[in-house]
């Protein structure tokens, strides 16, 4: 569970093209180093119990207010009330506290305005509520106004609300000129605000647009309705305004859900992954699944230090901003698992920073996949090593056997032949009856010894195989069978490397032994074919079948022997026959 993953998130310092600098405002303090526990549970924090209570309480109150509302004021109450509910939900996360509070305040002010009788105070609260909403929209989603222009605009909004409300324009207390001027001023301000929102949307990253789309759309619509309503004082338009105003909280929730849904598609990603996926593939799949083209995975040198800096090689590449001149350079997260030898840099749309739980899930998934890929690669490498080592051992064994056979032939057998020759010469002399008898006994012993040695040498490495090659040796084997047998092959005259020939010979020998002992066949066909670097040996008989590699007919040892050379052995032996044994053995052709 406590995976030793550390997720260090360098702030904009990542995109190390020196010109960029730390444009991204999030400071290093926002991204502590994590070991083991997922980010979300510590830094992001879940909703505190207090906030949950708040949400529930507010929800109940609002429901009450709406249900007991006199006709005509249900919708405005609902509008204000829903702002309060959504605001409390939004504020329950630390990352959304500011925005949540703004929403809560806006909703509360709206409801207060509804409740109050005095037109001027009511108008002031109305204005405050709208100014708070404007502030909220400008600072969405973080709740902070980052640019001086935004701050100025928000301040102007508050000021306008103050002026509008205190002049009593709603109540008709101001002169026509003042009313027109102030209304126009507010209208201009609102239009500027709409323009800012539209521009921001257009310049956002795809992810940002998906999340803020509903909000900005509803917000712009509400503001437009506001302006028109102010200018024309039309009741129907005013109703439109209230409706769009009421829709805003829903739009906030919708935007949030869209981001979460994007992250939920991670499950789809997992389903489609195959083992051995490369970092690049994973990067692409992530980008497509999450709908964030800014997502990139880049390998880091696993040995590089555990500080939050990124190696120059990573920085040199793709340091381009996520959206064209939009929210700043792509943010990134460094994911490391030193034990598994995994280190990647996950670049993403900065938007994900407001959804730390989702980012956590993405990071977790990436680490999981990469660990899996590492393991897979290690396994493959290990398997390859083993295969090579096995082949080496098999070859060494073969070389040893051949050496022993040679030594027997050149050493012991020759001496024995020589001894029997000398004995023969002795037997030509007159030895007397006793002498003849002894000579004869000795001769018999020597002949026996020679025969034994010959069998031994043959068992190690068949002599015909040495002298005449595989096809001739197999033909010889086959001719000793009591059944019809044919050898088909194109190897006559061609020599293959010793180990391969020996293995092939033993395959045929064992197969033929089994045919004679168990199959009750009337015909056997042996095929020898060289297919590139592979020798294919096939032994087919028309016997009763039912042979099984596991059932102690020597086929198990044979399969092992073949496998050790890197080849394969297949047995097809249904009950009733026919039986076909096929071995594919890697084999070099040897000149001469």
């Amino acid at each position, binding site marked *: 569970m406590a995976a030793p993953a550390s997720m260090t998130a360098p702030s904009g310092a990542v995109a190390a093209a020196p010109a960029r600098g730390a444009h991204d405002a999030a400071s290093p303090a926002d991204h502590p180093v994590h070991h083991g526990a997922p980010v979300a549970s510590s830094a992001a924090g879940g909703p505190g119990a207090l906030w949950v209570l708040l949400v529930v309480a507010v929800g109940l109150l609002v429901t009450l207010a709406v249900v007991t509302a006199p006709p005509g004021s249900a919708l405005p109450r609902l509008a204000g009330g829903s702002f309060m509910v959504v605001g409390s939900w939004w504020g329950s996360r630390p990352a959304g506290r500011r925005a949540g509070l703004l929403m809560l305040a806006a909703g509360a002010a709206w409801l207060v305005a509804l409740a109050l009788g005095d037109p001027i105070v009511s108008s002031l609260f109305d204005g405050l509520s709208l100014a708070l909403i404007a502030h909220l929209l400008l600072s969405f989603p973080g709740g902070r106004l980052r640019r001086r222009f935004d701050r100025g605009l928000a301040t102007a909004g508050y000021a306008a609300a103050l002026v509008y409300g205190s002049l009593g324009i709603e109540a008709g207390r101001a002169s026509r000129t003042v009313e027109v001027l102030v209304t126009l001023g507010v209208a201009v301000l609102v239009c500027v605000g709409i323009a800012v929102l539209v521009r921001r949307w257009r310049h956002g990253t795809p992810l940002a647009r998906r999340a803020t789309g509903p909000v900005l759309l509803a917000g712009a619509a509400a503001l437009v309705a506001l302006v028109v309503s102010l200018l024309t004082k039309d009741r129907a338009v005013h109703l439109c305004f209230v409706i769009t105003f009421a829709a805003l909280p829903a739009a906030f929730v919708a935007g949030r859900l869209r981001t979460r849904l994007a992250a939920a598609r991670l499950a789809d990603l997992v389903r489609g992954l195959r083992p051995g996926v490369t970092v690049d593939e994973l990067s692409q799949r992530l980008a497509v699944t999450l709908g964030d083209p800014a997502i990139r995975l880049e390998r880091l040198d696993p040995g590089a230090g555990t500080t939050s800096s990124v190696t120059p090689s990573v920085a040199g590449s793709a340091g381009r901003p996520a959206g064209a001149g939009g929210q700043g350079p792509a943010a990134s997260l460094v994911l490391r698992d030193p034990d598994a030898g995994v280190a990647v840099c996950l670049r993403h749309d900065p938007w994900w920073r407001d959804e730390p739980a989702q980012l956590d899930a993405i990071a977790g998934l990436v680490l999981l996949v990469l660990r899996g890929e590492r393991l897979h690669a290690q396994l493959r490498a290990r398997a390859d090593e083993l295969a090579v080592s096995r082949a080496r051992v098999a070859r060494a064994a073969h070389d040893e056997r051949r050496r022993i056979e040679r030594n027997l*032939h050149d050493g012991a057998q020759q001496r024995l032949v020589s001894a029997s020759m000398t004995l023969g010469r002795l037997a030509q002399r007159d030895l007397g009856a006793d002498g003849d008898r002894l000579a004869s006994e000795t001769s018999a012993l020597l002949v026996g010894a020679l025969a034994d040695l010959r069998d031994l040498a043959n068992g190690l490495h068949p002599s015909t195989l040495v002298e005449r090659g595989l096809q*001739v040796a197999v*033909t010889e084997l086959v001719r000793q069978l009591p059944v019809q047998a044919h050898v088909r092959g194109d190897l006559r005259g061609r020599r293959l490397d010793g180990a391969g020939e020996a293995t092939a010979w033993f395959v045929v020998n064992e197969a033929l032994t089994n045919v004679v002992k168990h199959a009750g066949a009337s015909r056997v066909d042996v095929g020898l074919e060289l297919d590139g670097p592979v020798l294919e040996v096939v032994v087919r008989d028309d016997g009763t079948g039912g042979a099984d590699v596991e059932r102690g007919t020597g086929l198990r040892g044979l399969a092992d022997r073949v496998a050790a050379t890197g080849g394969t052995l297949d047995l097809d032996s249904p009950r009733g026959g026919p039986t076909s044994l096929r071995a594919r053995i890697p084999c070099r052709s040897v000149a001469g």
Partner: protein
Amino acid sequence: MSLRVVVADDSALLRRGLALLLAEAGVEVVGQASDADATALQVAATRPDVLIVDVRMPPTFTDEGLRVAGRVRREHPGTGVLVLSQFVSEASAVDVLGDDARGIGYLLKDRVADVGGFVDAVRRVAAGGTAFDPEVVARLVGLGRDRRGLGDLTAREREVLGLVAEGRSNAAISERLVVSPRTVEKHISTIFAKLGLADSPDDHRRVLAVVAYLSR
């Protein structure tokens, strides 16, 4: 006039043993060689009656001996070749025979210990006859006999067939089996009839026919 032979074997021990053995039996060893090229040179230089050569020789120790045997038969048709092997290979025996059974022999080295039999084989080959190791013949005749259509033959007939395959003359066969030459002749015509082979007065042609039949 004593026989003149060249002995070719890469083992000095065996060459010496053979030379002594042959000398004591009245056969003159006019040359020795330890590899294929030297063998060919010796035969060319000394023109022996028989070349006695080991199958395995340097450099590859596979079948150099067989190949030089073939070469000598082509280049010096009058010289008999007796191939010695440390083990029995039917395929090699049949290859050695080729299409001409004259003046050719294939023996197990073990056989050399029976000096009388060995020298007899050498003389047979020198005279243009055939000398096949009984063990090779036993394999050809004995194993898989039903398959080779030898099931019709009686045990005695099979024995005779074996001796024919070895390259022995009727006289030798009758002596070996202790029967009259007439009986031997009768056996042989019966055998050949059963196998569907044409009989021939020439021993070596007989051998060829029989071995060819047996090694199908």
